[in-house]
């Protein structure tokens, strides 16, 4: 089943001589339950692509369909609502709300949606993330790896259509990185969660089902791992 389709996506910054094509006519599809890694050098446009897929930025032209829905047809408010229900974003610097504790940060998308949080699911999630004992802690009381686990929890709590991770291990040591990767893999297997990860870490890329390589805003390689 197709969960994501990108059609002729373009993102252009600047004008005339200063024009930069961050994303240049990109098209591809992702099936439900796939674990995709997007790799490319710094400035290749992979982050911009991810943000366009995540609905936090708007493209210059082209379309993004998530679960069959053309997301850029939505109004800003509806897009925001779509984001909290269907998209889980994980950033390199975690970007947690400093005044909310672990539990509150994780349940933030539910709360915004005014949904009841399934206590069992939350408990299970906290256990999976290894944060059971730290659920009342504030982000600044956690290590980097723990913070990133919180942000994974936040991304996954609403069982979104896709989970997008932007260099999730970029700020972590190798041990924490391994933990995060295995968590992402776990969520992919356990919840059949579609995951798209941006990275330039070969190791992570090798864990993925599929690797898309981007250069100068264009897909230059799209291959499946054995």
């Amino acid at each position, binding site marked *: 089943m197709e969960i994501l389709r990108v059609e002729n996506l373009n993102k252009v910054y600047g004008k005339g001589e200063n024009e930069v094509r961050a994303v240049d006519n990109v098209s591809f599809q992702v099936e439900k339950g796939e674990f995709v890694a997007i790799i490319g050098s710094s400035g290749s446009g992979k982050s911009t692509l991810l*943000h366009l897929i*995540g609905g*936090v*930025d708007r493209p210059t032209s082209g379309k993004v369909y998530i679960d069959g829905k053309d997301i850029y047809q939505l109004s*800003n*408010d509806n897009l*925001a*609502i*779509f*984001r*909290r*229900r269907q*998209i889980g*974003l994980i*950033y*390199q*610097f975690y*970007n*947690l*709300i*400093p*005044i*909310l*504790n672990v539990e*509150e940060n994780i349940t*933030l*998308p539910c*709360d*915004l*949606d*005014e949904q009841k949080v399934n206590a069992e699911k939350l408990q299970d999630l906290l256990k999976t993330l290894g944060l059971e004992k730290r659920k*009342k*802690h*504030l982000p*600044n*009381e956690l290590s980097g790896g723990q913070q990133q686990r919180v942000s994974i929890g*936040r991304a996954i709590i609403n069982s979104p259509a896709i989970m997008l991770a932007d260099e999730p291990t970029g700020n972590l040591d190798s041990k924490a990185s391994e933990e995060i990767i295995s968590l992402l893999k776990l969520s992919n297997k356990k919840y059949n969660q579609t995951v798209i990860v941006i990275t330039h870490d070969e190791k992570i890329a090798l864990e993925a089902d599929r690797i898309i390589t981007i250069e100068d805003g264009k897909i230059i390689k799209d291959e499946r791992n054995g």
Partner: protein
Amino acid sequence: MSVLKKLTIRNLKLNRKRTITTIIGIMLSTALICATFGLGTSFQKSLLQDAIKSSGDYHATFYHIPKEEQKYITENRQIDSYFITQDLGYAEIEKELPDSYNRYWLIKQYDEKALTNNGVQLVEGRLPENENEILIQDRAADYSNQEYQIGDMMHLKIGERYSSTGEKLGVTNPLETTEDDEQVLEKFVPTGEEKEYKIVGIMKRPSSELEPYYAPFLVCITYLPEDKIVGNADISVKYKDVTKTYEITEEISKQNGEENSYEYITNGDVLRWSGVSKSANIATTLYVVVGIVVGIIIFSSVFVIRNSFRIMITEKYRQYGMLASIGATSKQIKRNVLQEAFYLGAIAIPLGILGSLLAVFILVLLVQNLIGEYANMEFTFYFPWMAILIGTILSIVTIYLSSIIPARKAAKISPIEAIRSNTEIKINRKKIQAPKWVKKLFKIGGLISYKNLKRSKKQYRTTVISIVVSIAIFLALTSIIQYAFGFTDIYYYENIGYNIVVRSEEEENEKILQQYNEISKIEGIEQYSIQKMAYITIGKEYDNKELAEYYGESQSDRTIPMIAIEDKYYDELVQKLGISKEEARTGAILADNVSYYKDNKYTTSNQFTIKEGETIKCYQENLEEREEETPIENKKQMEIKILKRLGEEQTIGIGRGTHCLIVTEEFLQNHMPNYRISNMYIQAENPDEFSKELDTMEKIGYTNYNESLKETRAIRTVIYIFVYGFIAVITLIGVTNIFNTITTNMLLRSKEFAMLKSVGMTAKEFNNMIRLESIFYGLKSLIIGLPIGLLLSYALYKGFGTSMEITYQIPWASIGIAVLFVFIIVFITMKYSLNKINKQNIIETIRNDNI
């Protein structure tokens, strides 16, 4: 110029808005301090000048100094200047004055300096230039129907006043008379000396030190040549150091020993406004008031300046970390912060001073134009050196103190800490715990707002305090106005239904009526009423014992007028009192409210112990001759029903505060056939024009109440200008504070906001969250500010209450204004920063902060 210096200047230029708000904050504070002191100076100096003008430019006067001892005073090293006056003696006033109490001239001789420095206020003509020329008072000229005029000669027989027991009477002795004031007992004994004077000028009445209000003489002044100074001269001196006046005067007066000490007086008015006093007085009160005002100003100013600097450094936290990481020493960073403070101060302080000078200049001009005429004095702008000095020093100290603390903090920043994250916001889990109901009631947005308030407690406290100060001051000052005017209004002539009262000098009713009819034809009358009245005496049994005790028996006059007003006005009045027209014609309305001062408090009571509805016994008086001798039993007795007692209600035709019985014309004619026509009450469209018309008519007198009304209004306008001006500036300081804090706080959190949006918060939800935060914010300020303000206003009420019987009223209107104002300001500021944030791209915001 070093790189760091360049960086500072560039920073100030780049953060233009922040720089401007900081400059405005410092400017307002400096300006307010300078203006307060400056106004104080100008008023004090104006009052001093006025005191000098009316009572003379000296600090003390020694009396009756023998010729040979004079040099011990005039050559004293402590004395700056002196002048000499002498009393030549009394002389009987030969022409008859209507006021028979004034029966002497007191001839004073002034030396050259005394003529210009002893408070002589020339109205017409010139000062005397030799010992044959003389100045008389305007009273003498007026009283005598201009019989004493410039150019006239006066032939005076000089003499002394002696009491019936043969003692010599002086300036401070009133006229000695018999108990009933019928006969004069003191004697005038001529010394044989005779003088011929030419009147060369007319002056205003001299100060009460020279001529007490009860004095039976009129002072006139002639020239005193130096060679004519004899013994017993009065020497007035001005000291080099006015603050030592009391000690030096005491010392000089006793230089011949305790028992031979000189008599002396000190010039109270001049000393008071020079800030010298033996006891608490107006000058001290003025200083206390100025002190309190300045205290409040400094308090709010320190907050504004401190806040601005803290915010500026918070914003540049990362930059300082960066500088540190490339090797800037903490000393350099500290210097950098202080330098920034220096530049800001260098721009803002002079601007503030200029602004304050302008403000003081305008205010003084305004006061002069509005009340100078009524107060009969000149308000002049004096350049307030001291105020500028004090304002500058205070501002510099505040700026230094408020920048040194953040500077030290900035210097201590560890580079990586600063670059990576905001340590300014140290969060403690316990401190930001929110009760469960917050989330339940206000959803997640409310929870975030609530927690945020708790997180940036310090910043919010600053802002809350500045709002609180504004609210409290506003409430307190509006109460002052309310109370101050609440009771001045009782005594002044606002909305009483008339502004001119005409009295006829005719004797017969017909002639008076004729005159009044003529007046009623003059154009510009809105309404008028002709008062008819007769006198009655109310029986002794209705005497208010307590009041009689207070005033003394003689004061409680039971004879009061029965006044009839025209039916139209009578009906209006009874309607206000709630009696039907029919019932109102069966009796009289009693006006007998008394307000008197007892036990340090104004109390209201009634002159008679008559109950409403009671029928009282009273006696008719014969108007032509109110013979005290006729025993009351012989007077015609009558019964009158008292319907109601008059309260605060006003009507044309009844003088304010008059004790009387108010009846219809018919009632008066039936009961008191010997009534007479009294005053005519007129509400004129233009009272001043109308007065001019009246001036042309003969045998009438009138009072124009518009003058007193204008005066009250002018004084009130001045007070309003000051009070509201003060509130405005304090509020402006508060607003600057609020603006600074909220915008910064919002900008610092823009990354968080972007985060919330990226996880799916809609714009609407986001705006709601911010709105909720504003409400929490405003509520907190109001919860603290309103009670403090109310407490202050109650304290003021207590202060006023000691001298006036008034009930405390919660100033609901002011509270409403304050509440509205707080929310409007907070919302506008939030909206402003929201617009800024909403314009930002989510991704760019999140990224920007990560670089």
